């Protein structure tokens, strides 16, 4: 019997983009979606005004490699770590988290400790952000498929 499944395709990088909070300024997030798409990624746009719970749930359903979080309203210190915690609680800490928005320098250190890197501000080139995501995903160790019940 012939083997009907061909060789493994290289895994496409899947990324979720969302703005988990009361911030409807989606232009930047949409520009990023397009930049990620043009870099060959499959981008799931989760939209604005989501909750951290929704973002974590979407990340798991979609089995993404990375989640890009953006907030311009100052709530990043609450919302971003909350997404990180929810993913850890769901045995999905291997999903890479990157952030962006209006993020003061002193906050960046705290966020990085939570595993949220990048934290790019306005004016960052798209290339820098795309490269950061690719680098982090490349280093990521995908936990094996043994989800806890």
């Amino acid at each position, binding site marked *: 019997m012939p083997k009907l499944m061909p060789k*493994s395709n290289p895994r496409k990088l899947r990324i979720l983009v969302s703005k988990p909070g009361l911030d409807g300024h989606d232009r930047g997030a949409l520009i990023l*979606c397009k930049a990620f798409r043009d870099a060959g990624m*499959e*981008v799931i746009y989760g939209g604005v005004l989501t909750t951290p719970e*929704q973002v974590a749930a979407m990340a*798991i359903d979609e089995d993404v490699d990375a989640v890009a979080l953006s907030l311009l309203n100052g709530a990043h210190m609450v919302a971003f770590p909350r997404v990180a915690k929810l993913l850890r609680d769901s045995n999905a800490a291997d999903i890479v988290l990157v952030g962006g928005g209006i993020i003061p320098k002193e906050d960046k250190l705290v966020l990085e400790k939570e595993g949220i890197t990048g934290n790019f501000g306005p004016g960052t080139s798209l290339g820098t952000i795309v490269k950061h995501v690719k680098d982090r995903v490349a280093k990521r160790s995908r936990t094996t498929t043994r989800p806890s*019940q």
Partner: protein
Amino acid sequence: MIPIKPILDGNKRAVSRAISLIEDESHYASSLLRLLYPHTGKAFVIGIVGPPGTGKSSIIDAMVRCYRQRGAHVGVVATDPSSPTSGGALLGDRLRMGLHSLDSDVFIRSMASRGQSGGLSPTTRNVVRVMDSASMNPIIIETVGAGQNDVSIASVADVVVVVLMPQMGDEVQSGKAGFMEIGDIFVVNKADLDGADKTISDLRALRSDVKGWEPPILKTVAIGGKGIKEMLVQIEDCRQYLEKKGYFARRRMAHLEEELLGDIVSHWTQKLKLRAKRTSRFRAIVREVVSREIDPWRASEQLYKELDMM
């Protein structure tokens, strides 16, 4: 070996990982599918097809809400196109279904078409099987915003709903071949816009009926959920009609026949291509065609003989 129990139990992380393996056509995919296959065939599969922007995702959002009120465990596969240049994709369907993400009995997965024409991804059928084995029922498939030729959904879904909206063209459009022929149910969404009645009468004039089933034409306004309950009633009526007449099982058999033939053909195509290229005469024949010594039809006849295919 991947444990299938968490998948069968509907563990979301297990289901989503399994889907990735299948989507990436991983080495594990075929053995996984073999284990899951005995647990499939239970789900009722609804296909939603229509041009971009007619509101397919919003209709699915409203459908899921209705099915959840009845306590169903719903699966959704939402497809958007892959870029032919970068290979990337912007998957924006679940954006319209945001409120269901937190519902443990709703599983939504976005898929890119990954180079396949026809409106679905090459692995949609098998992704539906994973959801089916996880006891999701119904499973709703949203196609890529369809061009007129995108009819793949008809060989995966049990019932197909075509979603249109007002002011998309005159009655000639509704008589054209392609996805207008595969609808079991037609929905004119955004029916609060001008021209909805004209769209309906155009459709009525030229709809194709499917074996004695005259496809109903419904009005919906997906945002707000208007007309969605009626749509689900029609979907159920259609299913009962197909079952009563024996068409339901026949459709599924036709889908499987097509799948098997497709697998065999693609396997042999690969093999034949390799064999043809390895044939010593291949290059020589190509050169003879280039120099007009022989014509392409005689050349392929010769190759055919050479490959022992006659």
